[in-house]
């Protein structure tokens, strides 16, 4: 597939469109949408209307009573989720959110303004669930539900990464991501899903992780990492799997033991947890922190998340530690406790090294590794040599969910300032709770969606370009596996010369381990930048 060049893509038209917004027709142009989910994955998960189809087909092969299914589904959710009804009713269309969406900024398509994206569903809500809409129709902003509306929903609800940046600016606090979530959930009822969400979900249901890694494959990967860490540091760490009676269960995204650059972060975890002597174990079934159910339906979130507490109970641990993953933390922080808890068989997490009691996790019993590591550094428990990261000039990309869904803003920065000498922030309206999405989250990080990903990632890449040119930044640190997979091609496209790494890769580089031999390379195997004799 020939891809548009950056200088072409950056010619964005923000002017009004000639067409009335109520016209639902969309063009499924290659590069701007994701392929449909394969029937085998729907069947595996027991989802309705499994069939062969693609979004660019004329006939989507919807079930005969698709309209009733959608309207019944809407009615059920309006009664079940008060937030959904509220978000349908209270928007005054002030437009504060309009230019806050990365997809609008990168595409100029008005239906990517969060207010209008939500209006695509509100117009149907008005038509069938309000008196004014039933009586006055178009005059009251109401639209009939047609097959073209379903196609439009599919196009735009899979052109929202559920990043929630718009919600930060909404004076009413409308969370447009929740509207997208309901939109996807309704489409799911008639079998309109994307494969990049449902194949990982089906894999997760079968093997415990998105990639479909089976227990012997998981062990092979962990063993390989242990061997390689020994070659790099001279220290052999113990990384146990399914060990009953360990104090802590450690759950990471599966990409950490599969992808690059994720893998270097995995080495960083192993080095750190060995150095402090944490009594922890992995689980070969809870071998995935991520939960693509979040991008499908509430029901799927619950089904895929159940393994976390189940494995913690089976292994008899006291609490759970979680790795660098983005959307995983929205699920763990905001859904897990009420969906699959209470985990009253676990204890309130206490760091065995510092004695710190993680009160904020007293209910979920699960701590983010950045919180855990920041606490170690704050209490002076780690020997760190930040000069080992002097080949990097670093900036930090707040991943949407850890930043906006759990408020993890200070800990990663505190760690980075401790393990790197050269750190520069991007402009303030692009970081922390105002962070710009990578453009590929919520299951949209597929190759076929390349153009839309580059468009959606433009605001983020633009901020990286600013610090790259101003401060010579050559490394973007982040704490999300989707980021680590999708930011490298984004930056290669818009800002060549900036690499991507996890925070704990940099921790692993800087960590001075007891008994280690001089580090000749960093965790990537690249030659160390300076003499190592000091620590010998």
């Amino acid at each position, binding site marked *: 597939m020939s891809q548009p060049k950056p200088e072409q893509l950056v010619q964005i038209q923000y002017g009004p469109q000639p067409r009335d917004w109520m016209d639902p027709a969309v063009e499924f142009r290659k590069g701007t949408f994701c392929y449909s989910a394969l029937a085998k994955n729907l069947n595996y998960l027991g989802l309705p209307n499994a069939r062969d189809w693609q979004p660019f087909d004329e006939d989507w092969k919807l079930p005969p009573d698709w309209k009733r299914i959608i309207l019944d589904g809407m009615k059920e959710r309006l009664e079940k989720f008060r937030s959904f009804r509220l978000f349908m009713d209270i928007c005054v269309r002030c437009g504060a959110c309009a230019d806050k969406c990365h997809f609008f900024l990168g595409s100029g398509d008005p239906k990517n303004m969060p207010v209008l994206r939500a209006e695509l569903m509100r117009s149907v809500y008005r038509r069938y669930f309000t008196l004014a809409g039933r009586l006055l129709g178009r005059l009251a902003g109401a639209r009939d539900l047609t097959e073209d509306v379903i196609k439009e929903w599919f196009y735009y609800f899979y052109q929202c990464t559920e990043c929630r940046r718009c919600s930060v600016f909404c004076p009413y606090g409308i969370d447009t991501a929740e509207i997208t979530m309901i939109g996807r959930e309704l489409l799911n009822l008639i079998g309109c899903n994307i494969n*990049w969400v449902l194949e990982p979900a089906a894999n997760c249901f079968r093997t415990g992780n998105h990639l479909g*890694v089976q227990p*012997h494959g998981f062990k092979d990967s962990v063993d390989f990492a242990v061997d390689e860490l020994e070659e790099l540091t001279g220290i052999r760490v113990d990384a146990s799997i399914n060990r009953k009676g360990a104090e802590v269960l450690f759950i990471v995204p599966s990409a950490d033991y599969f992808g690059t650059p*994720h893998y270097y972060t995995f080495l960083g975890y192993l080095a750190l947890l060995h150095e402090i002597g944490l009594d922890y174990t992995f689980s070969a079934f809870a071998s995935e922190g991520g939960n693509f159910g979040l991008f499908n339906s509430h029901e799927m979130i619950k089904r895929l998340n159940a393994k976390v507490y189940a494995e913690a109970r089976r292994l008899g641990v006291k609490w759970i530690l979680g790795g660098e993953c983005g959307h995983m933390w929205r699920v763990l922080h905001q859904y897990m406790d009420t969906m699959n808890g209470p985990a009253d068989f676990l204890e309130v997490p206490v760091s065995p090294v510092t004695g710190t009691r993680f009160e904020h996790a007293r209910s979920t019993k699960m701590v983010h590794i950045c919180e855990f590591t920041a606490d170690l550094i704050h209490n002076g428990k780690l020997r760190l040599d930040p000069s080992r990261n002097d080949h990097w000039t670093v900036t930090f990309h707040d991943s949407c969910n850890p930043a906006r869904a759990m408020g993890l803003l200070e800990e990663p920065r505190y760690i980075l300032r401790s393990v790197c000498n050269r750190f520069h922030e991007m402009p303030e309206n692009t970081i922390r709770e105002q962070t710009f999405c990578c453009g590929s989250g919520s299951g949209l990080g597929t190759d076929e969606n390349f153009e839309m990903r580059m468009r959606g990632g433009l605001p983020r890449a633009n901020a990286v370009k600013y610090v790259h040119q101003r401060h010579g930044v050559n490394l973007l640190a982040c704490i999300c596996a989707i980021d680590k997979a999708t930011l490298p091609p984004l930056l290669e496209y818009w800002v060549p010369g900036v690499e991507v790494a996890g925070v704990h890769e940099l921790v692993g580089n800087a960590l001075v381990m007891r008994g280690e031999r001089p580090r000749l390379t960093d965790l990537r195997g690249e030659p160390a930048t300076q003499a190592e004799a000091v620590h010998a």
Partner: protein
Amino acid sequence: MPVFEVHGRTYDVDEDGFLQEPSVWNQDVAADFATSEGVAELTDAHWKVINYLRNYYLQFGIAPMIRKLCKETGFKLNEIYQLFPSGPAKGACKLAGLPKPTGCV
């Protein structure tokens, strides 16, 4: 379901051109799919990567870690990209008849 036609043979593939049924793979299949990945000729270096992927897949049911692939074959990641322009997951795995990895990768 899309079909990939080459040298008078046809294969069921997914939208990205990956072989749908990994069990029909043999060396001729790899050579056929090379044409779709911009690989002009399969050299010993290509076969080293393809065979490693294939054997790993038969044992574990999935592609190996990218880092492991590099280490066990002795090629750096940029060298893999030179051999297979779409990279290890999308290029090399396609020629070896493996399904495309999905998730945060």
